[in-house]
């Protein structure tokens, strides 16, 4: 396999996912502006943070006026899963120069990982395997930049009071509900939701953080009990 054929293999593996990602990117651009983020900052978030669900989360937290430290913590929490992808691709990348590792780590998203990993597992010893991951990562990056730019441009034409900020909770519902496929996960969601409502009056939105930890602990506890 040549570098260019490996790159194209990665791009082709990712392209179908852009059908799902592009509307998501447009919605992000629109709701970021509705949350009060200026257009340039909204667009730059797509390259500086470059993580779909974290970007929606940040837009929501800006909208409710959360403190900066809580926002950074929330983004870290929601992106923790990328550590698993990092561990998964690390053996394939270990012999590469550092600049390649830095580039591929920046591009390591849910979609790029999902598109590239079957090919990486099939050819772990290919000297060109990293080009596959680069192809998937770059295709997703480029598509995400275009989609969010389109969303920002469309959003700038819309009046601010359409109630479009409601798209944020709806997006989170669309992400979370399909993940709830066991009793432990349902318990995690219920605990988190109830605690968040009970603690909503806490200063600096700290109730959100406590609620997320309560849900996490409740879910993990239920799962342990279920395994015994």
């Amino acid at each position, binding site marked *: 396999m040549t570098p260019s054929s490996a790159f194209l293999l990665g791009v082709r593996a990712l392209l179908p996912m852009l059908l799902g990602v592009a509307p998501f990117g447009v*919605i992000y651009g629109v709701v970021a502006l509705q949350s009060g983020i200026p257009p340039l900052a909204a667009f730059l978030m797509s390259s500086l943070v*470059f993580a779909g669900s974290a970007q929606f*989360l940040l837009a929501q937290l800006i909208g409710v006026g959360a403190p900066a430290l809580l926002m950074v913590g929330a983004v870290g929490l929601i992106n923790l*899963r990328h550590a*698993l992808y*990092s*561990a998964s691709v690390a053996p394939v990348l270990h012999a590469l120069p550092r600049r390649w590792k830095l580039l591929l780590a920046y591009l390591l998203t849910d979609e790029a990982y999902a598109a590239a990993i079957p090919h990486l597992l099939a050819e772990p010893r290919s000297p060109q395997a990293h080009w596959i991951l680069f192809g998937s990562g770059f295709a997703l990056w480029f598509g995400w930049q275009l989609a969010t730019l389109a969303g920002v441009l469309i959003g700038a034409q819309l009046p601010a009071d359409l109630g479009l900020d409601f798209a944020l909770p*709806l997006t989170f519902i669309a992400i979370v509900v*399909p993940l709830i496929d066991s009793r432990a996960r349902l318990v995690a969601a219920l605990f988190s939701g109830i605690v*968040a409502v009970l603690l909503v009056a806490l200063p600096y939105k700290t109730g959100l953080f406590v609620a997320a930890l309560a849900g996490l602990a409740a879910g993990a506890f239920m799962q342990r009990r279920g395994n015994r």
Partner: protein
Amino acid sequence: MSQTALILLWIACGALTFAIRYSFIALEGHYQPPSWFIRWLPFVPIAALTALVTPELLLVAGQVDIGTGNPRFWAGLLAIAVAARWKNTLLTIASGFVAFWLLQQLA
């Protein structure tokens, strides 16, 4: 927040995200995440995002309101049902939005 402050915040969030993505790559495959981390991880998006959504749906001006004066609650409930039944992101957002808009017109 000013635009400059926002961009500095994005850089902080981006640096942390990058550090997470780079973590095990930097360790060159010598280490794997601990098993408790892998067990807890699936609960993170569920707990974090539900904590954000629930007050948005249930509270009006800081008080729990699940009456006819709170279209977000009923539209959110419909979106949860649609998401559970069809597991389709765009369908969930669209149905919740149409319901929200219709309920606002009725109110």
